[in-house]
């Protein structure tokens, strides 16, 4: 009797476990909770575009000895269900055309052993008119050793809610919606109100070119920079992932800009001023100024383009300038030492930060024909010039 009870308990948990390691069947278009009206024939003869923040599509993490890929599961679930509901589906790109645009933004949490997805969504016609906007919450079983099905199934179920609602309400009208180029689609309708990350940039010449770290602009749907009194959407004009540098054209001339040193060599111990915008939220940002020294003329082992400095920095300082007392641009802030593993070993490093060398900055600017000047300036206090030359950059998804 005892064995039978244990067998029943194990069978029950086993069925739940199967759910947490097996993906939803590929042709699923409805379930007990979300149904499609009987008179609707799927797939609809409709072309749709889907926008999901890039950070969600690419998300991965390492835990329990293996790599987990919620982004891959989300991507494949989106492909599967949208192809079941519509005869033409694509990811949002300005060069595409579509009748409808779906904006999907998922977040996941673990709750009582299950994976809970909260999917914020909005559906637009291709001319930008919002049809409806809401949030759906769904759960799925979760297996710590094989998490793919959990992320896939939770994503699939949540999108089932969105799409069944859409077709039940709008299937009869799809033929009236024109196929339109998305080139004119207002991207501000797709991005979240708050930037996903912020960084810093500074003027490198009179023409209004801003230099920053390339990773500040990575995967942004919209990048905004404060130019004068207005916030302007911009794009990278030149970029190097290898050096982690990028140039943005602000479109406005600037009388305040930073010059590179005439010499490429760095002097150990030289004083530096760092200016950055470490706070998220472009409208409330104010510059942060710190001071330090060149603490090593070399970066971490294996680096050929960075050196170490001690001026305190924070997230959002990336791309900011490091300036000498003679107003020379001595580097672009790119990274800080990851101290977590060192702290676990009882070592607590402080202010171990890295910047790109002036030599590499010059090579990058020359390669991309970005004009710049060299030499010291003593006609203005370096802190004042640095502040006037620096601005904040916000990345939106």
């Amino acid at each position, binding site marked *: 009797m005892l*064995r039978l009870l*244990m*067998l029943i308990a*194990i*069978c029950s948990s*086993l069925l739940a476990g*199967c759910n947490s*390691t*097996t993906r939803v069947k590929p042709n699923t278009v409805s379930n007990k909770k979300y149904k499609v009206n009987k008179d609707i024939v799927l797939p609809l003869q409709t072309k749709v575009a889907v926008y999901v923040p890039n950070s969600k599509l690419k998300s991965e993490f*390492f835990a*329990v*000895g*293996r*790599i987990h890929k919620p982004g891959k599961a989300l991507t494949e679930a989106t492909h599967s269900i949208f192809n079941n509901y519509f005869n033409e589906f694509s990811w949002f790109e300005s060069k595409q055309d579509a009748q409808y645009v779906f904006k999907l933004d998922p977040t996941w949490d673990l709750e009582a052993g299950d994976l809970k997805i909260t999917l914020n969504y909005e559906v637009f016609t291709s001319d930008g008119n919002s049809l409806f906007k809401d949030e759906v919450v769904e759960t799925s079983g979760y297996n710590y*050793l*094989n998490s*793919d099905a959990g992320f896939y199934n939770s994503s699939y179920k949540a999108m089932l809610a969105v799409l069944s609602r859409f077709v039940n309400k709008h299937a009869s009208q799809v033929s009236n919606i024109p196929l339109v180029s998305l080139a004119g689609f207002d991207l501000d309708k797709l991005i979240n109100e708050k930037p996903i990350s912020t960084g810093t940039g500074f003027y490198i010449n009179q023409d209004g070119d801003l230099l920053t770290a*390339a*990773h500040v602009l*990575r995967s942004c749907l919209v990048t905004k920079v404060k130019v004068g009194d207005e916030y302007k959407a911009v794009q990278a004009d030149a970029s*190097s*992932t*290898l*050096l*982690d540098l990028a140039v943005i054209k602000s479109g406005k001339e600037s009388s305040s800009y930073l010059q590179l040193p005439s010499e490429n060599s760095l002097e150990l111990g030289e004083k530096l001023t760092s200016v950055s915008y470490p706070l998220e939220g472009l409208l409330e940002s104010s510059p942060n100024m710190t001071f330090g020294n060149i603490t090593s003329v070399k*970066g*971490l*082992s*294996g*680096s*050929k*383009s*960075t050196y170490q400095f001690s001026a305190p920095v924070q997230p959002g300082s990336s791309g900011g300038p490091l300036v000498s007392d003679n107003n020379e641009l001595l580097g672009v802030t790119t990274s800080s030492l990851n101290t977590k593993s060192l702290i676990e070993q009882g070592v607590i490093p402080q202010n171990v930060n890295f910047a790109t060398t002036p030599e*590499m900055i010059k*090579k*990058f600017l020359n*390669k991309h024909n970005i004009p710049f000047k060299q030499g010291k300036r003593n006609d203005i206090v370096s802190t004042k010039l640095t502040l006037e030359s620096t601005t904040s950059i916000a990345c939106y998804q």
Partner: protein
Amino acid sequence: MKKVLILSVIAFLMVTSLHVKASLVLPPAQFINIVDDFLMDELKAYPMFADISAELPGSPIKVVAYLEQDTTSGGAAAEATSILLSASTLGILPVVSNKDLKLSYRILVNGQLLTEYSFIKNVTESDNIWLAQYDRKLDKDIVTWVKSTIPEVVSKLSNDAKVKALLDEYNFYFE
């Protein structure tokens, strides 16, 4: 005529073998190994990976090798049945599952994925259900299979336009 033909074939073979041998060489890169300890030495035996090291945290280029397991649909049913059998006896019986083992090699530049190549092997693996651990040493057959993927990934990376562009840029800035 025969001599000309033979000489042409020999010349062609020589040129072909030179082309195969002259593969690209990656710059000094940090190697992140989530497979098994043996893989580093196996990769470094090939000129392409001669300059990889686990001790280059400052290199903007990372080479990552990792393993994943995807349960095939047949595998899930086999595993369920096996678990039921094990549970019904409440003893120690192996869990039999069919899994696709996926080995991936990635090249990253300052955290951004440049390119990735994956290899898949279907395996049947027996594990004790009560003592199952997720951190095992690889079986000998799997080690042999992993080693067999290296020449192919060398060939793919050698012909990858993104890798060639990276090397051109690296040489421009640092050589």
